């Protein structure tokens, strides 16, 4: 493929990098006062990238995608779908951020620049069809995330979260890299095509070790049990807008990478990794549900909720079928909306002095002090619990349907049973907001940009979201079929 073709098909990344570099110059020369302008420009750039990716996705001449940059990077429907989700989630997180730092005056124009580079890393990750490309994208995303986690410099917890995330993230990268080196050593190739061909021709024990290490490293990044320990601490310590970001975009990217990895290079040997994924899925659902029960900090609770949701998404992967992959993508899209919405609602809960309210007990009385906010948050919680008229139910329905179709009845039954435990703590939040004696602490602060994000996500999650099912199902099916397209 010609260099022009390569440039064209990876244009979302290249465009974002160029914008990021220009904005970096603006921040370097303009200083703190450019924050607002740089944020707006970053949102516009991400929006442009999303539109361009959508064009690549819908353009029939790229239906089968293409390997570019000499087989290191693949533009296909799957990558484009994930990238659109990532860009939209990043936009949502960027829009709600600046107000948060108003109190401490710590917002700086480097924040959106780091977000852009993080989004570039995620885009490279999900389009990677070579181990080296995957690692590069992952590191780019991770480095940006470590810095963002400790962005609130006056807050000790933020510094702690950043350090913790950095050390454990580096460990995860090490495990992943070790697995990759084993896979490379025993298959002789770093490209997904080469690995698949080598594994299909017979697999040695060393390659099994490599696959397990790679999956463990990626499980760390998606925060699946037993590699979830860092999540509650990091989610609690990081500034809330950054937590919002961690719970959405990087999660989509890491799960998409895990999907592509499991189904493309290791697709022929699915019996090797299926047990691992089944264990991780069930354990994540159970630990995520049980761990959340005792929490009194809403950010920690949502961290456990995200572990729980990752478990449900992995149910689709365990099926190792095309329907399973499509179901995962549907769930991912709904999860991004739910997660973004609930964190933005948490972000909007402030007391009289403008401090963030994070304690669950302090949320009592929100239904009278700010009924709209309470309603939105209640819808989010009920949807996360998977209660039928809301859209969250649809996501759970499709993944379990895929598991049942793949003849994994027992697994699906256990997962559904465990999801009932999760409903408990989601309902607890609703109960605290509506039925407990008002604690008189929480007061929602209205801010148009946050209301817009919250309203959009609430609309998606509400029963109206079901209008999206045909479209979402169709798009996800197209994206998933790209994964199973054998060249």
């Amino acid at each position, binding site marked *: 493929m010609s260099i022009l073709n390569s440039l064209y098909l990876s244009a979302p990344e290249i465009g974002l990098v160029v914008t990021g570099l220009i904005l970096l110059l603006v921040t370097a020369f303009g200083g703190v006062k450019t924050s607002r302008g740089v944020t707006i420009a970053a949102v516009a750039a991400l929006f442009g990238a999303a539109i361009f990716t959508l064009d690549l996705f819908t353009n029939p001449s790229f239906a089968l995608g293409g390997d570019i940059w000499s087989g290191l990077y693949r533009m296909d429907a799957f990558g484009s779908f994930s990238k659109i989700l990532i860009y939209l989630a990043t936009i949502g997180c960027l829009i709600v951020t600046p107000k948060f730092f108003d109190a401490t005056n710590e917002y700086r124009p480097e924040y959106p620049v780091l977000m852009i580079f993080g989004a570039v890393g995620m885009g490279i990750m999900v389009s990677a069809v070579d181990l080296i490309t995957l690692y590069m994208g992952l590191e780019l995303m991770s480095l940006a995330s470590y810095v963002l986690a400790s962005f609130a410099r006056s807050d000790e917890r933020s510094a702690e979260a950043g350090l913790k995330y950095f050390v454990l993230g580096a460990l995860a990268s090490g495990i992943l890299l070790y697995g990759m080196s084993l896979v490379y050593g025993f298959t002789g190739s770093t490209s997904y095509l080469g690995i698949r061909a080598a594994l299909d021709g017979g697999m*040695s024990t060393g390659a099994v070790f490599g696959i397990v290490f790679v999956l463990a490293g990626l499980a760390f990044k998606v925060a699946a049990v037993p590699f979830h320990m860092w999540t509650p601490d990091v989610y609690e310590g990081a500034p809330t807008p950054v937590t919002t970001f961690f719970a959405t975009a990087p999660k989509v990217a890491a799960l998409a990478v895990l999907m592509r990895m499991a189904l493309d290079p290791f697709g022929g040997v699915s019996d090797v990794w299926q047990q691992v994924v089944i264990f991780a899925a069930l354990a994540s659902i159970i630990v995520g549900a049980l761990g959340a029960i005792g929490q009194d900090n809403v950010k920690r609770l949502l961290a456990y909720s995200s572990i729980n949701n990752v478990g449900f998404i992995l149910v689709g992967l365990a099926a190792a079928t095309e329907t399973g992959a499509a179901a995962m993508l549907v769930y991912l899209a709904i999860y991004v909306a739910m997660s973004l919405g609930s964190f933005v609602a948490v972000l909007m809960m402030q007391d009289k002095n403008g401090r963030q309210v994070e304690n669950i007990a302090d949320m009592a009385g929100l239904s009278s002090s700010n009924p709209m906010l309470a309603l939105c948050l209640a819808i989010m919680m009920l949807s996360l619990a998977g209660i039928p008229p809301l859209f969250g139910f649809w996501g759970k329905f499709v993944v379990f349907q895929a598991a049942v179709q793949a003849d994994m009845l027992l697994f699906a039954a256990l997962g559904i049973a465990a999801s009932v435990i999760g409903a408990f703590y989601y309902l607890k939040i609703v109960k605290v907001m509506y039925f407990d004696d008002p604690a008189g602490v929480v007061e929602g602060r209205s801010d148009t940009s946050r209301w817009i994000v919250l309203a959009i996500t609430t609309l998606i999650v509400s029963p109206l979201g079901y209008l999206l099912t045909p479209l979402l199902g169709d798009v996800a099916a197209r994206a998933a079929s790209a994964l199973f397209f054998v060249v």
Partner: protein
Amino acid sequence: MIQTFAFYLFAVLVVASGTLTITARNPVHSVLWLILAFFNAAGLMVLVGAEFIAMLLVIVYVGAVAVLFLFVVMMLDIDFAEMRAGFIKNFPIGILIALVLLAELVLGIGAYRAGALELGVPDGAAAPIVGESNITNIGALLYSKYVFLFETAGIILLVAMIGAIVLTHRERPEGARGHQNIDKQNRRRPEDATELKTPSIGKGVEL
């Protein structure tokens, strides 16, 4: 003949300077011994025909890492005597780790004797150009096939740099100690800063 001589020279010096690195009383001396060890390891790499790695050792380890160590050692107020005080206490654990390493070494040699591992066949994506040096080969791959990743690596380093500055740089208000006006500093010309005077013999200079 000369290769054998060079090998033993480098090898003995690596081992000797490595030992001195951990036994030297003065931490600054330790780092200097470490630098010597790196240089000799680079010499060994040249002997096995890996001249690129030899250069990396010198440029990256000696040039950057070792100098960084030196700065850390000299700038941080670490009480090394206190750090050494736990030596006797931790001695059993150290011995245990040494034994584990020894067992691994024995196992490794045993496995090596048993025959080579069945590795995958290289797919030829990175096949070298025969008759060219390592550096030419690496360059040919890095700037053609892997150019996308090469650029990505650049962005990663840039992000790391942004991160380090964002997390540590503090803008000093005007008038405070350490305040910088970069624009003003850039506009400064030699003629504003220095003045050439030719004093006549036997007379002082009015400053």
